[in-house]
């Protein structure tokens, strides 16, 4: 312990996140933690484990499943959930499509990214979840940089960025009417580098796709995509083998890999610290569609 009673940045961020999670567990009736198997939700789940230790995590986790998954991530998800003894809710985009709630996109850039919003909002309503933890960080994207830690959603699941509740000190207004809910972001103040430093310090296991491996890929718009059955690949997009790793994990059809030889957490940290491109800019097609792509999706109820 430091003699000046000053916490290190990771300890301060951890204390803040745990305070947020306990506040949700104390004030909401049916919270849920959104878990994608990506590094941010992995950190969030590890924080939840600590926040309530030695008791079990007092809420279920939910995966919004596009059906276009990296098998390594699903394997990881199932193993982690079993270890913690938490209940897993899988909300399936395929089910939403089959039920006529969402329509599959077509063409070369077809993706189920946007359809996830329908599945997510339906699942929140169906399970009567009144608070949903998300792993979004404010440093990811400039619309996210504007969002409160406790972010109010109306009965349509919409975010109104021009009329957010004032949020002073660490006093969070958790009051809602039936049908409304709150999205809660315990990692709001973490950066990509903080997340990696925490993974290193806590020795958290990650799905192997976060580290360098050989993969059959093709190039599109300057990004490398895994050759996979869910994507419509043109003849001008030949497949080749490359050594890559993933910087973010989302739907297979929109998540690009980066050429990298970083095989350990330390090597990834060195790479992240030196990079000049943001993680979403480098690896997410969903954010490239327009200037306000994230804001528009968030307004509709996206993560």
């Amino acid at each position, binding site marked *: *312990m430091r003699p*000046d*009673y*000053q*916490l*290190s*940045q990771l*300890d*301060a961020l*951890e*204390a*803040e996140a*745990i*305070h947020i999670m*306990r*506040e949700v*567990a*104390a004030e909401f009736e049916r919270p849920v933690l959104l878990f994608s198997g990506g590094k941010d939700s992995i950190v969030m789940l590890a924080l939840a484990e*600590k*926040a*309530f*230790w*030695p*008791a*079990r995590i007092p809420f279920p986790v939910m995966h919004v499943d596009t059906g276009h998954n990296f098998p390594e991530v699903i394997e990881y998800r199932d193993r982690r959930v079993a270890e913690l003894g938490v209940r897993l809710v899988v909300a399936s985009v395929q089910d939403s499509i089959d039920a006529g709630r969402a329509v599959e996109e077509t063409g070369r850039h077809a993706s189920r990214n946007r359809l996830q919003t329908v599945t997510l909002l339906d699942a929140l309503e169906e399970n009567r979840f009144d608070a949903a933890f998300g792993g979004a960080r*404010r*440093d990811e*994207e*400039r*619309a*996210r*940089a*504007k969002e409160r830690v406790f972010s109010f959603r109306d009965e349509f699941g919409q975010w109104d*960025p*021009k009329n*957010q*509740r*004032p*949020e*002073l*000190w*660490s*006093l969070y*207004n958790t*009051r*809602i*009417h039936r049908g409304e809910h709150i999205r809660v972001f315990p990692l*709001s*103040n973490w*950066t990509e*580098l903080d997340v990696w430093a925490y993974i290193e310090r806590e020795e958290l296991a990650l799905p192997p796709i976060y580290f360098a491996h050989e993969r059959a890929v093709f190039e599109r718009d300057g990004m490398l995509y895994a050759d996979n059955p869910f994507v419509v690949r043109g003849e001008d997009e030949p497949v080749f083998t490359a050594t890559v790793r993933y910087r973010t994990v989302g739907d297979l059809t929109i998540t690009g890999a980066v050429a990298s030889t970083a095989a350990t957490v330390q090597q990834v940290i060195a790479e992240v610290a030196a*990079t*000049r*491109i*943001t993680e979403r*800019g*480098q690896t997410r097609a969903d954010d490239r569609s327009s*200037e*306000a792509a994230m*804001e528009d999706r968030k307004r509709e109820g996206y993560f």
Partner: protein
Amino acid sequence: MDILRFATAGSVDDGKSTLIGRLLYDSKSIFADQLEAVERTSRDRGEEGTNLALLTDGLRAEREQGITIDVAYRYFATPRRKFIIADTPGHIQYTRNMVTGASTADLAIVLVDARNGLTEQSRRHAFLTTLLRVPHMVLAVNKMDLVDYDREVFERICAEFSAFAARLDIGDLTFVPISALHGDNVVERSANMPWYDGPSLLHHLEHVHIASDRNLIDVRFPVQYVIRPHASSDPELHDYRGYAGQVAGGVLKPGDEVLHLPSGFTTRIRRIDSAGGEVAEAFEPMSVTLLLDDDVDISRGDMICRPNNRPAVAQDIEAMVCWMSSTVTLGPRSRLIVKHTSRTVKAMVSELHYRIDVNTLHRDESATKLGLNEIGRIRLRLTQPIFCDPYSRNRTTGGLILIDEATNATVGAATITDPR
């Protein structure tokens, strides 16, 4: 490495977002793709040079109108510190969002346009900053390039602000002449102002001493959550009963005698668990779990302190309030919900003593209500007591938010001046 949280404040067009863009740019914290996007947009709009404000104005409406509506949080680090910036709106209509950003700040930068000097909005923000007791303030006189880097202009504004500040309670005040647009005195000392011998803004942010801003004397532990594993199979866990919360003041150690409120019962701390396991001591802002020697009935909303150093147990409080609702006003007999630490109670305004004119600091005692963004002193009657301190003594146990019963909106924030 520690964290410094700072907020920027000031009028519209005083250059807050540009300053942040400059800090990020010069500290090499802007990524190539972000910069490209901003350069492209600036070019498309026919703007001269790159508009760094576009980096933080993250909402469509903000970019369209060229103003900041809500706080944007940005992050950067130097080898000395990690920084969390709250870029707050200057527009008076969005004062509540400025207050959101300033409430957690260790330091506030109030920007003033060198050509215009102090405005009502810069006074308002300086006043709110002191009301929220942000421990350190920097008055940054911006756009020095537009007044030929004139020393007299800078000194005149400093003198004017000092006269205003003399009536406020500002702990630590620093003046820096800058040009956010050109980078003078932002990261590096400027060759254009050889008459200024103070540090650059970033140097000040890196070195300002914040370790002693916290209250390490008065032990305050609001109980947030009770941890009971309910694991009948494991005898050790079966009896586990932990009181979880975030330390709001003082230093707690195993063996310390503590007092529980509201019961007044005393016991000792048996063990302190933190996220990483058992710890030897706990202090602000650690999130920990206390295990106590005796089985006391303790629940969320209760307070743990020391027997000879207790917060007030108050059902009537005097407070300064900043009203944030555009649809309802605050006046005598207004009914509200109060959230204070981990306790939520109902309240009624028993008296509105005065409204403050932020420009002159004049107290208008004839005021009968407070509207959006107005500040005044009130007396609140609570349905149940809260365990609180004057805000000047503790920013956690002295602050509360006011919630509208019907809409659930957060309609006000208050700082306790006098708990009775």
